């Protein structure tokens, strides 16, 4: 079977289709994911193939259907909740954190919790403040979740395939600016384990851990800065929980400098967590403090110039890298 170039959305949909063919207990719930095929085409064509009980359109009641999926996962099926915009998950935070995250623990593993919770995150297209969040710290801080943040079509398919076989609750978070990105993807089924970062570009002067849309931005900046004699190593963690710290530490041993670039907020964010872990376990390899580049800590505004102003730009990434190299 050959690799071919498809979009991130198509790649993820392949993983979902393959899994639904193989496993009749998988079903999808969400608003508009039935005959319509999903606002982001996440389930395009699946309703015709698998029918209305496995592609179930819901009323607008996120707490209700997330709670429903909790009970379903406890009784032998594998629910997929497709939130469309991940912001809508907030209406179900109680079910998520007090129930889904805790049931395996309270039952000593006698009950599994194979719930997949997917949705589009992030800023872009004027979606504004109710449709632009990421919420990573919530999912990473609560014990019990796997948090998956693929940035390429290849990773999206392989990680979703793993998520659909995983007996733990998984947050599968797809940045809306990456959905139409194209990349080479094998036709066959394959899985990428959680907790394995990808070194997207090797370098020797500075390690940059990039999340989501900052991955392509950092790669573009790396290409540009190579012309200035700066060699950037770009690491895509691919999963935030579990986090592959070893790959980051190995990189740091080489470069001595670490920048975490993330569109989402700084306070208590993923960058703060990585910085703390690196300080604890890689202190002797640090030639400078760990630096973070985050989006502005504000609700997301609507107007295009305002929206652009709250997201780290390529220029800001380049400046942060240059400053770190100079430290």
């Amino acid at each position, binding site marked *: 079977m050959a690799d071919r170039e498809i979009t991130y959305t198509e790649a993820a949909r392949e993983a979902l289709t393959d899994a639904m063919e193989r496993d009749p207990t998988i079903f999808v719930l969400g608003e508009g994911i039935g005959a319509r095929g999903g606002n982001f085409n996440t389930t395009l064509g699946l309703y015709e193939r698998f029918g209305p009980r496995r592609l179930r359109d819901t009323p607008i009641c996120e707490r209700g259907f997330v709670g429903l999926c909790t*009970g379903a996962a406890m009784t032998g099926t594998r629910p997929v909740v497709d939130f469309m915009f991940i912001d809508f998950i907030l209406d179900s935070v109680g079910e998520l954190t007090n129930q889904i995250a805790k049931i395996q623990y309270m039952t000593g593993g006698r009950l599994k919790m194979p719930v997949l919770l997917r949705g589009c995150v992030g800023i872009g297209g004027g979606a504004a403040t109710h449709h632009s969040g990421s919420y990573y710290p919530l999912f990473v801080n609560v014990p019990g979740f796997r948090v998956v943040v693929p940035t390429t079509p290849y990773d999206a398919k392989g990680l979703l395939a793993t998520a659909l076989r995983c007996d733990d609750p998984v947050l599968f978070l797809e940045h809306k600016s990456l959905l139409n990105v194209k990349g080479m993807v094998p036709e066959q089924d394959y899985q990428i384990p959680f907790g394995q970062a990808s070194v997207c570009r090797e370098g020797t002067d500075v390690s940059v851990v990039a999340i989501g849309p900052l991955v392509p931005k950092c790669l573009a900046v790396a290409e540009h800065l190579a012309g200035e004699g700066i060699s950037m190593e770009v690491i895509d963690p691919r999963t935030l929980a579990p986090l592959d710290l070893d790959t980051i530490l190995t990189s740091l041993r080489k470069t001595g400098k670490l920048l975490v670039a993330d569109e989402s907020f700084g306070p208590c964010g993923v960058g703060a967590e990585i910085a703390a872990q690196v300080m604890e376990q890689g202190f002797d390899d640090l030639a400078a403090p760990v630096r973070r580049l985050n989006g502005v800590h504000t609700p997301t505004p609507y107007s295009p110039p305002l929206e652009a102003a709250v997201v780290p730009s390529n220029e800001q990434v380049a400046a942060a890298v240059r400053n770190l190299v100079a430290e």
Partner: protein
Amino acid sequence: MDKSTALSLYTTMVRIRRCEEQLARSYAAGTITGACHTYVGEEAIATGVCAHLRHDDAVFSTHRGHGHALAKGVPTRELVAELFGRATGCSGGRGGSMHLFSPEVGMMGTSGIVGPCILQATGAGYSFQLKQTDQVGVAFFGDGAVSNGAFHEGINLATIWDLPVLFICENNMYATEVAFKDSARNTDVAERAATYGLHAEAVDGNDVAAVYAAAEGAVARARSGGGPSLLECRTYRTRPHAEGMRDGGYRSQEEIDSWKARDPITAFSKAIIDAGTVTAADLQAVDDAIVAEVADAVAFATDSPWPDPATVADHIFAGSATGGVA
């Protein structure tokens, strides 16, 4: 009602009553930490409903769940050991009273949060419908859950999708100390549920035969693809909301006494003796056996080991850290 059924119902109610009285004593003695919400006075509901359930039916309960656990088949030893915090408890000491789990008998959790059980029972119904089995999901909740969004969302989802679910509202008129009449203009839960398109009926929750009959119909409806039902079982708890809390102040002694006079166990004993279904000696034999069973459970729990602190971080996840494979 035949003798076998009558004795079975009587046994379950007495088991719950004696166990709850023991747990109340243990709580007062300091053997139980955390919360302990007893089910005294409400035994007919768990008993009458669970009599129609199999181990592969799924019960989801609330903070006042010891009666549901026992009626569903959690061994008395495992309930007491759990509240004593021992490793032999049904949740391995990890849950306590409000997080009782025994999936082996379809006891899918009591809960410290009001509302989720309604949604989870609906989800169990979803699984059973998808897998095309005749299993049912059951949610037990109180009047306090009726004003919560989970009630609205859960019964709506079950109804639009014809899911095999029983919603059992144990209306004891108070949510902690807040009277239901102060939380809702319409306190007729069955009437409210019916407006969703759901089959709903009000039942005397202190009459185990009435609960048994209503539940029989509701379970049969669900198993045969007839969809969900709600039973509003009107009852009363004659002990405080939780052990260690005050009993009065928000309700009168006259009210409490009037419901004690409608004790479900006393009423049922009299009914089945008067009908000639059983003899007083039959019931005494059950009473004696239950007293011994509860004493055995306390001894078992007292002698059981504590959970090992080295295991405190186990079972957060099912698979390995790398995600596992199906």
